[in-house]
């Protein structure tokens, strides 16, 4: 195993440093988006005795700290009062250690992690276990609603410390607690041992009001909205939903659960179906204690609901509220609703409908103001390396290519000399240098690209369908490598199976003693290290302890990432067919993992509502992207690797800057969880879809929704752009592949004037853009990919009985 790095990398990597941790610039950055290093290293910088690493605490058999899940859930339920029947993690933490599968898991996997301590920061003395960093999860900071600079710079530090101390106390780590207190020269930060976090956070809801007043107030508001002018009606209508939610929470908090349910049932039909869904979830809350665990209630109590309103509409609303003197209503509107006011006329119903849908309302204008480099950087010059692949090819038996092709190639490479004004500077995100093998592959890809068919409405692609027979409802995900040579399939039975889709079989590397015999200087070393005898058409990777949720190939096809329900991410070598690293950190199931298009970095997202950016050689995440209010279900790297888009069950999409760690776009308008996203080839557009089957196309330059492509009748699981960017393919649970004319769509965008304040009217242009739709024989589709020659490959599952 030790020889692996040298074998896989042709070029030494000393010159390359990944993006640095964020502590230098973080003090001035938003408090919400602290990198893990912040939380771990700030205490460290003041303490000679840092928090013991996980290993240590495990060996000391502290029952409280045995499971990463426990740790993450701890902040959620900081209340020392144990609710007898509530599902607080404390309850389970009292169980003996052996029963928690996660804890065993942690123990077992510690060894590989230790083996591969290839941290890029050797100066970091003893890193805090990743799970500890989650103290910085949104649950703590949720009383600070916006990731804006509302709080003074000092505040996060204090809050962090308080939280740390509380946590330490809860875990019974008295020694460390004392030390920390000494270090920061504060004996009492105002922590009342009997203080309940929940009580603090919810005290805003305390009200002596008569429960019947709520319904009256709501009805009055509704009446006012219905009677107002049509121009304002729809914008005003946005207020109703947050008001209802907060009234419900307030009623429940004050012990009027039955009245609250009654009121909800009475008014739920006023609201859009997606909000109805959330209200139904909220309706499970019937007691004060429940508020803490409920996703909706928790989100609403900690966040302001965002509504964009024109100045006139807002004035109208305020006047009404002041006239009527419904204190209940006034309180809610003042405390829990954030109005993003804009000049100009109120928006139309269609427009409001197109951007509403997010769990906490719409994006403010500020959210999408930041400039992003959505362009594609110039491809690194491959001229110099051409000689290398050519030589290799001739020696490797591929010398049948005529020499005449050379001038053609040159023209191909010189084509892209014009640089994109929107492209990020090349040194913005440190990328790993290209290895020789990468260059060979790139040249191959370019050659293939020359043969590819240009698609369009007149020349539609061929679609090859790989059907997984006998799937027995166990196939959870499928992924095809970029060069369409390997298909990887994840199963709910925790294993991963790979098939070779090309005549070349899946070869493994020779054993160590055989490798010693190979001359290191020979040119075809990459061929020689492979063992031809044990080549197989399919291989199985076993290691996870829960259903595999997503897979991702590295761009050079030597590595595979998998994430699983068992909260871990594993990195597999496709040369050794073994697990190399186990990345831990998400204390919750990981829903998605994705390699960066340039390799080395990868991102993951999961049930803990946090997306993480990792580097393969570090077992700690480089960045945490915190901001979603529900599970992060999917993520996608921008083709220039500088940004990560995350789609969530809170029905929003966020775009994060990998370099600064800050959110740069917030896209609202989805009416259902987002399960699939893809960036356009040019990098400017993002297509996304999800639970309701509608494909949304966004313009990232301004964050506007371009169009809505409707047609799918069920969940869309996968989206893909053709290599020339002309066609968008979508497929999913409804057993249909649909092809959309994206060339036409982007042409329309270019000719249109862009309204800067908010997007122009959204056209539902599904019929105009739908090229063709292909049904399979009742086999749901899992994955789509266009090959380098623009053949569409799709993976379907068939559940034979």
């Amino acid at each position, binding site marked *: 195993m030790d020889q692996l790095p040298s074998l896989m990398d042709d070029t030494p990597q000393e010159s390359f440093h990944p993006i640095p941790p964020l502590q230098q610039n973080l003090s001035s950055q938003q408090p919400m988006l602290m990198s893990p290093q912040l939380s771990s290293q700030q205490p460290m910088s003041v303490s000679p005795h840092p928090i013991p690493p996980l290993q240590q605490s495990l060996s000391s058999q502290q029952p409280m700290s045995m499971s990463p899940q426990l740790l993450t859930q701890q902040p959620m339920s900081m209340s020392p009062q144990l609710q007898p029947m509530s599902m607080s993690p404390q309850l389970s933490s009292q169980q003996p250690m052996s029963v928690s599968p996660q804890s065993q898991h942690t123990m077992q996997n510690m060894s590989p992690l230790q083996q591969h301590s290839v941290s890029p920061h050797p100066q970091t003395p003893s890193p805090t276990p990743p799970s500890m960093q989650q103290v910085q999860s949104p649950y703590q900071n949720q009383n600070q609603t916006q990731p804006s600079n509302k709080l003074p710079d000092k505040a996060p530090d204090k809050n962090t410390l308080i939280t740390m101390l509380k946590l330490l106390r809860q875990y019974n780590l008295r020694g460390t607690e004392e030390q920390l207190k000494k270090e920061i020269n504060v004996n009492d930060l105002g922590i009342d041992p009997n203080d309940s976090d929940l009580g603090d956070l919810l005290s805003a809801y305390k009200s002596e009001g008569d429960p019947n007043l709520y319904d009256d107030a709501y009805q009055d508001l509704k009446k006012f909205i219905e009677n107002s002018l049509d121009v304002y009606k729809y914008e005003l209508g946005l207020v109703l939903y947050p008001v209802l939610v907060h009234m419900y929470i307030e009623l429940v908090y004050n012990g009027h659960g039955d009245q609250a349910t009654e009121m909800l049932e009475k008014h739920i039909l006023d609201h859009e179906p997606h909000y109805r869904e959330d209200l139904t979830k909220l309706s499970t809350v019937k007691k004060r204690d429940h508020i803490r665990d409920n996703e909706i209630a928790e989100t609403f109590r900690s966040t302001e609901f965002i509504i964009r309103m024109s100045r006139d509409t807002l004035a109208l609303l305020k006047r009404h509220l002041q006239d009527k003197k419904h204190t209940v209503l006034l309180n809610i509107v003042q405390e829990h609703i954030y109005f993003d006011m804009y000049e100009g006329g109120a928006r139309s119903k269609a427009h409001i409908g197109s951007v509403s849908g997010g769990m906490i309302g719409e994006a403010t204008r500020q959210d999408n103001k930041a400039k992003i480099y959505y362009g594609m950087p110039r491809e690194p010059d491959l001229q110099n390396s051409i000689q290398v692949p050519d030589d290799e090819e001739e020696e490797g038996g591929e010398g049948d290519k005529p020499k005449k092709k050379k001038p053609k190639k040159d023209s191909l490479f010189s084509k892209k000399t014009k640089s994109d004004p929107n492209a990020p500077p090349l040194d913005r995100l440190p990328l790993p240098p290209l290895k020789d093998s990468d260059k060979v592959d790139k040249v191959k890809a370019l050659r293939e690209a020359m043969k590819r068919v240009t698609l369009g409405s007149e020349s539609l692609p061929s679609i*090859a369908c790989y059907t997984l*027979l006998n799937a027995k409802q166990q196939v959870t995900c499928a992924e095809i490598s970029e060069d369409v040579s390997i298909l990887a399939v994840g199963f709910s039975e925790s294993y991963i199976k790979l098939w070779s889709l090309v005549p070349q079989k899946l070869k493994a590397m020779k054993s160590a003693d055989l490798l010693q015999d190979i001359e290191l200087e020979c040119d075809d070393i990459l061929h020689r290290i492979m063992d031809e005898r044990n080549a197989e058409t399919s291989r199985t990777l076993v290691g996870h302890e829960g259903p595999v949720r997503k897979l991702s190939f590295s761009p050079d096809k030597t590595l595979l990432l998998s994430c699983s329900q068992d909260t871990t991410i594993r990195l597999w070598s496709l040369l050794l067919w073994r697990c190399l690293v186990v990345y831990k950190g998400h204390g919750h199931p990981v829903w998605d993992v994705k390699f960066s298009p340039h390799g080395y970095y990868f991102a993951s997202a999961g049930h803990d509502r946090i997306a993480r950016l990792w580097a393969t050689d570090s077992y700690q995440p480089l960045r945490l992207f915190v901001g979603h209010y529900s599970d992060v279900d999917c993520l996608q790297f921008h083709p220039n690797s500088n940004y990560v888009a995350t789609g969530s069950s809170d029905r929003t999409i966020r775009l994060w800057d990998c370099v600064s760690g800050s959110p740069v776009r917030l896209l609202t308008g989805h009416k259902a969880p987002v399960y699939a996203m893809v960036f356009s080839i040019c990098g400017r557009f993002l297509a996304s879809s999800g639970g309701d089957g509608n494909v949304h196309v966004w313009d990232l330059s301004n964050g506007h929704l371009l169009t809505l492509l409707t047609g799918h009748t069920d969940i869309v699981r996968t989206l893909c752009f053709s290599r020339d960017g002309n066609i968008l393919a979508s497929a999913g649970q409804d057993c249909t592949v649909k092809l959309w004319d994206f060339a036409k769509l982007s042409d329309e965008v270019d000719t249109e004037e862009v309204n800067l304040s908010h997007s122009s009217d959204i056209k539902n242009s599904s019929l105009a853009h739908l090229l063709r739709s292909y049904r399979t024989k009742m086999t749901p589709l899992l994955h789509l990919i266009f090959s380098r020659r623009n053949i569409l490959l799709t993976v379907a599952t068939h559940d034979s009985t």
Partner: protein
Amino acid sequence: MDVYGTFFSMESMKVIAETIGIPNLPDEAAKELSDNITYCCKIIIQDAFKCMLHSKRVRLMPVDIDDALAMKNIEPIYGLSVSQFLPFKHASGGGRELHFTEEKEVDFEELLTNLNPKAALETHLRTHWLAIEGVQPTVPENPPPVDKSVQKLESIDPISKLGKKDKDTSGKPTSAKLEKLRNVETVHVKQLATHELSVEQQLYYKEITEACVGSDEVVGSKPSSPSPRIRVPRNLPRMCTFIAEESNERVQNNLRPSYLSDRMLHELLPSILSCIVSKQLCGRPEADNHWALRDFAARLLAQVSKNFNTSTNNIQTRVTRLLSNAINDTKINFPSLYGATAGLCELGPEVIKVFLLPKLKDIRDRLEPCWNLEGQSLTSTEKLPVNEASHIRVVLVKALTPVIKELKTPPDHLDEYRAEFGTYLGPKLHTSVTKSRSSSGGQAHSTASTSQSTTSIVHSSVNSRLVSNSSVPGSGGGLSSQRPAILSSSIVNQQGPAGTNVQAAQQQQKYVILSSSRQGGPVQGNIQTGGSQLQMGSNQGGQIMKLATPSAQPGQKMIVVSNNNASPNVISGPPKTKTVTFIASQEKMEFE
């Protein structure tokens, strides 16, 4: 709207408390518990849903609940994995309903001996083309180009397809270009309901055509399917037989008779009829044996009309009328006459009696001249009609023998025959009848009784009567514009009195066919509605009369009386309409 949904009742809490040894749980405690447990279960199910969705499933399974519990760091419930989706069985009785999980008895012996239970099949990969350059190939892995339900709808109502034509984005095997081309070609074609055939079907068709036609007579424009609009070229009679044979094969193999749906039948019948009555069926009529083809086609026609005669299409009636029209034509040439005669003869003795016998005189007159020529040495051109006439004689003799045997009393006199049937036909007939009488009296029916068992028809197109309009008070305004006429009516029961046996009762059918929209006259009716459905009383009782209104042929209405069908369905239009059209066009097409 009930938002909160289901919950655990307080009673359940108390019962559960009792089972774990806590009697008399206070109400408050039970309430508290039920609230909390309901809440916990809902939270877990919400999380289980997330697991389900990320497992790419749409059905919640026990394993999702386990995963959700693990997410909450709660010990999963072990031993509850089930293979079925719903393991609960339901039982009720004595006013109580019970859901339980069934526990199967395990045979211990079997468990011991059966060492390795069967392993589950491994997941494996299969590849196929979902589309090739935008066109979805019709391979077994792909769904049929048109959905089954849509196909069904189209077969009933082809107009529905026309409406959808303008924006068809489903992956049917036509590229954009082709579609344009076809639209240009078929702008004014009435029927656009094409049916794509799968590769297997096309191969099957090709095989059959090649087997039948042979390599020398490959049709220039390859037909695209067996059912559709092949206008059979006149010089390719074998093409007709191929179709006929194909259908015949199916008929004889007793494949579902409905396989040859009405739609196909109307395309088939013209070709069969062409084979029977066409003027010229082959290049060298004097040498080639087209008589055999005519005979065969006639037999086939009889079989088809026997098997596919339904209350809606009335094939037998139409066919009979058509053939008798041919015979009535005094200028018809001999081959056609032969065919028409053969066709009628095949339809049974009743038909012969009613249609052939009255016309025998005309036929005799036409054949008579040949008698003089018979036996003389002739040129080839002169020989032909003689030859043809002799064929007609053969078929007439063969068919008429049993009929005449019944009609005439035993002493058969040659002169009598000669006077009645002419010098050409008479002697032959006479010898045949006498021979038949002498051999056996009972076998007389054998030759021409094919169609007797199911239906038999008294057809009287000549006798059709006009009925006055005023006799039907209830008929709707739209129907009154045309004069009604009864074309045929038959009340014939071959199988004995109605009701004596069920078989017979099911088979007997009666037809009243009106060529116009009015009805009345001899049938004493009571029309309840002016629209589509009317009931009539008759002496046999319980008969239901249905009025079908074919949409495309406003001139024709069919009223069907049947004994066996009690449900007064109104038969929908298009298939029959086709049949109607066919007869109408056939009359023009085939007899010139």
